[in-house]
């Protein structure tokens, strides 16, 4: 990573290579570390997804390239291997890509810069939050190679499939599935480490945002990115410990013979499990108590970043700035009382389902407000179609689909039919791929100049967007149709049921689109690395953006700002002022009466 650093960096001559790039306490380096490791995992997770798709489209054929691994299965992929693929795809994407990139990379990089602080409140803690990810990386990757293979009980890891164990002290193998043995234990430990890392990060973010803002940076002058990161961190602080407890308890179930999630007397052929008394639904409650807010942890930062980007490139104040904040807070608040909507068909008391349904449907409201506000922002704007802006607009266009399809699932009677079908798969991918990942791409294109002092190639960025946008819809939109047809998810061979076999042509179309979509991302990778070394040098503020980070040098030195910035105005005042064009940075102090930019 030989990025050309301006001279300011050399003001800290005591730092050697190791402490500068590896054990750095500088929030920007930590953010970039998060970004790089997570992008590597993005490749891993994407590869797993493509394998899943190949198996789905040609379930009876030999798997190209990998068939040598499966000679003893007639060249086909064993079903347990397929289950591992999608379980690991989801786990990797959620816990090792989206959350670390959004909260870890962008959170770290943007928070001190955008609030005008020198660094995080606790730089050492910040460094630890990155290095606590490493045990998780090692554990999750090693789970592929242990006896029985990686976990295959889905990313939700429902007991008892995931947690049935041999009696204490008789090995970690599981009678329920080969993969639920060693691989599952490693998965549980990996996620515990991710949880610790996120928890350290969230405490740090909240403290930093509350206490380290630059003079004049009142709460209502903070950019949406910071608001989103702030609320995300609060979500993490409250929800993560519950997941940690669930993970620890399941680990104990699997290793020392406790039975929190295991009823007694389960029969698996010759194995009949011993004393029990636990409840399987308990895991689901604990898991979703975290993992539903986690869905918002995975989308809110993207929403924040997209708000910033849209406002910048539409050259318009963000419409309804406060409404945006309240709706983020509303989503987060409601997010804590709707976890049961994942469990409508789970055997939970159906009367609880009614309550969860009403709360869930109301979540659509703040989401709708946000969409309308984004539309309001580009209305009468002067839209500059940069790659970042395109991804942000793509986010809005496709988040609408993801949001609207959520209403189907929230409606309990309709959920009876579409629960555990491809409709769910379509929904989560519209929210997580075409929204969160689009937000991440937008953020990378937008902040790349600040991170590396060079600009990414705009032309290839737009090509990347155009192809990704079209192909993502080719991949994920037909899944709605599969779901409406009642195709179950998580099955490697849809020909097992004649009703489902009818969807084969659609499935093959999706797979081909997915393969091309995967290939298109190579454009991004090449563009990223090419620009890293050869990109056009960027000045401080290539986008004429108003927020604070653009008033720092590119890349910002250790300590970020030459002088402590003083904030005079809100982040989105893209209004025309005599002598300033429409670029009114937050640090700009105007003579005369104050500007009153509304929204």
């Amino acid at each position, binding site marked *: 990573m030989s990025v050309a650093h301006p001279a300011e960096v050399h003001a800290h001559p005591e730092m050697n290579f190791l402490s500068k790039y590896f054990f750095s306490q500088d929030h920007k380096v930590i953010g970039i570390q998060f970004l790089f490791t997570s992008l590597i995992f993005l490749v891993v997770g994407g590869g797993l997804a493509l394998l899943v798709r190949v198996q789905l489209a040609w379930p009876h054929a030999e798997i190209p390239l990998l068939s040598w691994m499966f000679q003893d299965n*007639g060249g*086909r992929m064993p079903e347990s291997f397929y289950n591992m693929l999608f379980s690991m795809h989801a786990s990797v994407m959620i816990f090792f890509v989206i959350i670390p990139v959004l909260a870890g990379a962008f959170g770290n990089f943007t928070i001190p810069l955008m609030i005008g602080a020198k660094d995080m409140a606790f730089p050492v803690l910040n460094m630890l939050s990155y290095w606590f990810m490493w045990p998780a990386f090692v554990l999750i990757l090693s789970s592929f190679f242990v*006896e029985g293979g990686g976990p295959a009980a889905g990313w939700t890891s429902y007991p008892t499939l995931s947690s049935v164990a041999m009696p204490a002290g008789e090995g970690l193998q599981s009678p329920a599935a080969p993969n639920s043995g060693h691989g599952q234990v490693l998965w549980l430990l990996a996620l515990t480490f991710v949880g610790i890392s996120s928890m350290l990060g969230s405490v740090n973010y909240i403290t930093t945002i509350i206490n380290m803002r630059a003079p004049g940076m009142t709460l209502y002058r903070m950019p949406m990115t910071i608001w989103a990161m702030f609320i995300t961190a609060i979500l993490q602080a409250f929800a993560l410990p519950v997941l940690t407890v669930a993970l620890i308890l399941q680990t104990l179930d699997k290793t020392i013979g406790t039975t929190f999630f295991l009823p007694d007397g389960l029969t698996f052929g010759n194995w009949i499990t011993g004393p029990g008394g636990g409840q399987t639904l308990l895991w689901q409650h604990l898991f979703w108590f975290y993992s539903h807010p986690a869905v918002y942890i995975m989308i809110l930062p993207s929403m924040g970043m997209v708000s910033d980007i849209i406002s910048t490139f539409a050259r318009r104040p963000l419409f309804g700035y406060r409404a945006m904040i309240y709706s983020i807070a509303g989503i987060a608040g409601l997010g804590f009382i709707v976890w049961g909507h994942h469990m409508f068909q789970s055997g939970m008391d159906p009367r609880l389902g009614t309550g969860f349904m009403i709360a869930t449907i109301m979540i659509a409201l703040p989401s709708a407000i946000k969409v309308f506000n984004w539309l309001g922002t580009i209305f009468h704007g002067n839209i500059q179609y940069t790659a970042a802006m395109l991804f942000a607009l793509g986010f809005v266009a496709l988040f609408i689909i993801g949001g609207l399809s959520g209403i189907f699932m929230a409606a309990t009677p309709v959920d009876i039919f579409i629960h555990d079908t491809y409709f769910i798969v379509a929904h989560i991918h519209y929210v997580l791929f075409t929204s969160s990942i689009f937000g991440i791409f937008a953020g990378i294109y937008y902040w790349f100049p600040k991170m590396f002092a060079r600009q990414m190639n705009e032309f290839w960025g737009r090509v990347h967007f155009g192809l990704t946008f079209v192909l993502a819809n080719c991949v994920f939109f037909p899944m709605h149709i599969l779901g409406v047809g009642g195709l179950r998810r998580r099955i490697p061979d849809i020909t097992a049921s004649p009703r489902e076999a009818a969807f084969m042509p659609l499935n093959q179309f999706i797979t081909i689109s997915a*393969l091309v979509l995967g290939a298109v991302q190579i454009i991004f990778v*090449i563009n990223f690395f090419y620009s890293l070394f050869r990109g056009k040098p960027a000045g401080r503020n290539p986008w004429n953006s108003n927020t604070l980070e653009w008033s720092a040098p590119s890349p910002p030195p250790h300590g970020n700002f030459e002088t402590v910035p003083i904030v005079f105005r809100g982040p989105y005042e893209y209004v025309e002022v005599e002598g300033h064009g429409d670029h009114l940075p937050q640090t700009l102090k105007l003579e005369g009466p104050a500007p009153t930019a509304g929204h």
Partner: protein
Amino acid sequence: MTKILPLAAFALLAPIVLVGCGSDGYSSAIVYGVRTDPLVLDDKLGKEGYEPDRPGVLPILLAKDVDNPFNPMYEKGASLFKDGLLRDPTKISDKDRRTLSKILQAYFGRPGEPQVAGVDSTATRILKLDQDTLSAGSQLYRLHCLHCHGLAGDGRGPTGRWVNPHPRDYRLGLFKFTSVDQSDVPRPPSRGDLYRTLQTGIDGTAMPAFNMLTGDDLQNLVSYIIHLSLRGKVEFETIKKAFDYDPAKGTLSITEDGRDDVYNYIDAMVSEFVSLFAKDWVESQTKTIAAPSYPYADFDKETRAMTAELKESIQRGQKLFLGEGADKAKGVMPSKEEAKKANCVSCHIDYGRQARYKFDAWGTLVKAQNLTNPIRRGGDRPIDVFYRIHSGINGSGMVAHSKLEPNHIWDLVNFVQTLPFPAMRKAAGIEID
């Protein structure tokens, strides 16, 4: 940046080229291998009472696994082979192995193109061993059975070692659940037995029901399983007969030194075995037990209560079950002549609740079923339980009780069906603890 263009174009095209590379059947590279796991020649492999295998460590008798110090057979490892309880086919010389493989392939083809050569047309017709049926069966087997039962029907597919009881190894020609008369010699099952097993699955094991497949598909599968079983048994007996273990060299070699024409020697042996075993199968198809009529009326129509004759039958069944080994502590004593006949409790200790582990014909550890558990692997219809008692369970140590009087078998059936359910035990007036 111009360099990116061709790269991107390549990247876009690559997946399209990849699409549809694989074929839907076995590739021609896949052939049946000559077996490598030991031949179990005797089931007295060790003392009773070992804990069973754990998931993931299935074949405790795999030769390399006996060398594993954690294997319970480790201490006896070497002597198992010396004493002739096991024979290790990995010791066959490469040349002989190639010869055997070639000959077997000539008779049985490969998974993509299975066949059974060397049997007469009657057998082919009765057992439906024609090539069309077999290749249809082989395709289905690849999709539905292979991952547990393995390519050669050896029960060692990729997921096979993770389930307990282990998937059946067809290569001994022994099948557990038959409705065929087993009183004199162990016989292969009828096609109907295999069909029913496929259709209903085996409760209490990882064998699921396959009744979402059509009847024709199941018939094709039955044929293919017969094919695998024939091939396996021929291979087994050939290795057992033709190759002998030389303790000095530690190898298996051709038994008769005088013959230089190894190919013809093995070929003749294989040819003989194929027609012999096919005959066994054909014979089995006609030896189905004719179950005698059921003598009792079970429930009173009006009150839905057990009839007195059913109660008596169940109580008789208990006495038959306990036989001579009846426990004084339980206060149950059978009459002399009844006691001699069944005596199930000698294996199903404490109604199977405290049964001990034993080795079966495949060299795996099994124990007599815990009959207080309602799961009946051979099927839970009364007629299924009747067959189990009458014809036993091949290879497992459960012997055929075909000498028992039919009515006594029905008594045992009634008792065994009552045993798992406390409410029914109470109604029938029997106590088990």
